[in-house]
């Protein structure tokens, strides 16, 4: 908490506080993040601005440093946990204030795989970018994906796999979508450390995304393209 610290968060001006939040996210300090989110809201910031300028911007730094090998898994997990604390405060407020709606994503780890740190991070950053995210968790057989896509009327399907033995299951899901004639109803994004672009293409996904930041950009671009096509 701030009173155990040298820094009193409430005494910082907005700019300093946002900078401090970036540092606190980097250090995975959940309580400090929650406190700072409440301070900004009390100062009249919109929930959307707190989300994007403080949380998402800070988490982007964490993601980049993980990609570049400066941070490792535990630091990322702690940072994600801190961001989750802040998001929990913002979510109900965002719903009230009508932040931009980008589209809806169903995301889950494939059958046989229970690695979920990367998937959770992608889910959170997609939410941070204004997508509605339905996280169906770990170890999902094809039926789970199909049910969730239909029930949620989703635009995007996201699948995660970290094991060589579970990667091929993504193709099972995509082939099932094809068989049912609904493949083109969805944008299919895949990810996980052992995958690569070639694999994504080979199984018929729309894109392989290396990390959460790339996923957000890819999803935005593909949703925009889809809207344009439908409009034309």
């Amino acid at each position, binding site marked *: 908490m701030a009173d155990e610290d040298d820094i009193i968060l409430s005494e910082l001006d907005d700019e300093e506080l946002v900078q401090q939040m970036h540092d606190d996210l980097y250090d995975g300090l959940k309580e400090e993040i929650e406190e700072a989110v409440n301070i900004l809201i009390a100062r009249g910031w919109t929930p959307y601005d707190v989300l994007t300028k403080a949380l998402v911007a800070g988490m982007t730094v964490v993601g980049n440093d993980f990609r570049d090998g400066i941070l490792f898994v535990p630091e990322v997990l702690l940072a994600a946990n801190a961001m989750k604390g802040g998001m929990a405060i913002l979510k109900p407020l965002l719903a009230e204030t009508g932040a931009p709606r980008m589209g809806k994503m169903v995301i889950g780890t494939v059958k046989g795989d229970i690695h979920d740190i990367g998937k959770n991070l992608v889910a959170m950053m997609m939410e941070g970018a204004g997508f509605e995210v339905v996280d169906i968790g770990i170890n999902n057989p094809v039926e789970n994906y199909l049910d969730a896509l239909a029930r949620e009327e989703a635009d995007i399907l996201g699948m995660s796999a970290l094991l060589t033995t579970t990667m091929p299951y993504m193709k099972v899901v995509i082939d099932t979508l094809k068989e049912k004639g609904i493949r083109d109803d969805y944008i299919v994004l895949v990810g996980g450390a*052992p995958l690569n672009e070639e694999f994504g293409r080979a199984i018929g996904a729309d894109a392989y995304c290396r990390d959460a930041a790339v996923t957000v950009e890819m999803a935005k671009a593909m949703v925009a393209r889809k809207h344009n096509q439908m409009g034309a």
Partner: protein
Amino acid sequence: MISDAGLTEAGLPPDGRGRVLLIACGALAQEIVALKAANGWDHLDLTCLPANLHLWPEKITAAVIEAVGKHRRDYDSIHVVYADCGTGGQLAEACARLGVALIPGPHCYAFFEGNDRFAAHAESEITAFYLTDFLVRQFDAFVWRPMGFDRHPSLVPMMFGNYEKLVYLAQTEDAALDAKAADCAARLGLRYERRFTGYGDLAAELARL
């Protein structure tokens, strides 16, 4: 005796004897040395890459390619004693390109138990976390510290929340390792099970060289 800590972080150079070079993961060194001694496989020489490359599997393929290049001229043939190890097929592709053999299978947990047997229970054992002899001995250096549990105990449930049991796939009969593995399970908050595997497919693969 080769030091386990050295194998985790530094690897092992070849000693220059033997016609066939094994380029192995440090996590397999003691097992290969034991198999060599037990079977009198003096034609095999061994060099190991640091076992902790496994935490950054994207680096494994390049490290193996470099090692093959470095030692190629000095041996009649080279065999890579890795499985896929999370390289997403890239290690197999590189080995095929270089004309060197690779152990089949996804990872050492599978080939110690036998790839077929492992695959057969994969579905019913999704919430299991496996340790081998090496990983039991190197649990702190390989799991506990890299996963940050020494600095942040709160990460244990975040990381292992979906796991139910720790299965120690034992290569050797060793009561001390059994006790240590049981302790690892307790530290992770998991149920403990021990399963003797011996050297599994590793022994069969090396016997063919």
